[in-house]
């Protein structure tokens, strides 16, 4: 059997995508060609099977993730400001640590001085 049609036209025929003259050509070819009739039946079976099993629903968590509100600009700004304050406190604590130690040592010195004075009975 000579194939005066393009085999891919069988899919386009099934999909109703052929212009009228080519559709007519495919139809008249199908009347005389068992091989192409069989191929058309096979692609129809594939179509039916894919339509039955091809679609899969999105996981529920995916929709939840898309509906979760993104953090607002205000919230982001607040978080940034709080972070900066915390950082500043941390850094200032480090900067003042020597002075705090010096004041502590001074107080301890005064206490021990007073204690020794009391102890000596002066």
């Amino acid at each position, binding site marked *: 059997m000579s194939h005066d049609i393009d085999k891919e036209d069988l899919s386009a025929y099934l999909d109703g995508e052929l212009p009228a003259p080519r559709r007519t050509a495919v139809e008249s070819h199908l009347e005389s060609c068992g091989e192409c009739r069989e191929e058309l039946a096979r692609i129809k079976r594939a179509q039916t099977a894919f*339509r039955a099993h*091809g679609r899969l629903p999105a996981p529920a968590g995916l929709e939840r993730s898309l509906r979760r509100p993104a953090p607002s600009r205000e919230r982001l700004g607040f978080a940034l400001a709080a972070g900066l304050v915390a950082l500043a406190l941390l850094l200032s604590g480090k900067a003042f640590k020597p002075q705090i130690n010096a004041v502590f040592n001074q107080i301890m010195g005064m206490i021990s001085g007073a204690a020794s004075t009391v102890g000596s009975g002066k």
Partner: protein
Amino acid sequence: MPTPDELLAHLDRVYTLALRLAGNPADAWDLAQDAMLKALKGLPAFRGDAALDTWLFRITVNAWKNRNASASWRWWERRVSLDPLGEEGSVPKLAEPGPEGALEADESRRALEAALAALAPEDRAALVLRELENKSYQEIVEILGIPMGTVKSRLHRARLELARALEPRS
């Protein structure tokens, strides 16, 4: 302008396309999420030149192409499973056939998935757009960004491969 809810009503359809493009549920999740976030962001620019679903599918395909273009994505893709159903337990249930029917349906589904896994992602996408979404060839051209002749040949080849996989083994 469509609302975000109207957009999210298409999520199952976007996910199905993403799953067939990416080839596995984990990457499909990322791809569908990426595409939907892009669409939600771009919603004010949607002019209605194309149908909303066509616009969404185009965004999904472009997001997939961008991911595919990155070397790290290609590296990752080579290492992940191509089984879109994932583990055995995650196979979605079919519409209540009898025990024999259930077995046959499950077998034919597995054969179909195996054949789909062997196809190129663009072939699977063309099948989704034609068989499930009923898109015209011209719309598929616009969504996938490939010539009309390629759409025709991809669809025909993909259907023949699926048909071969579904034929009873002699």
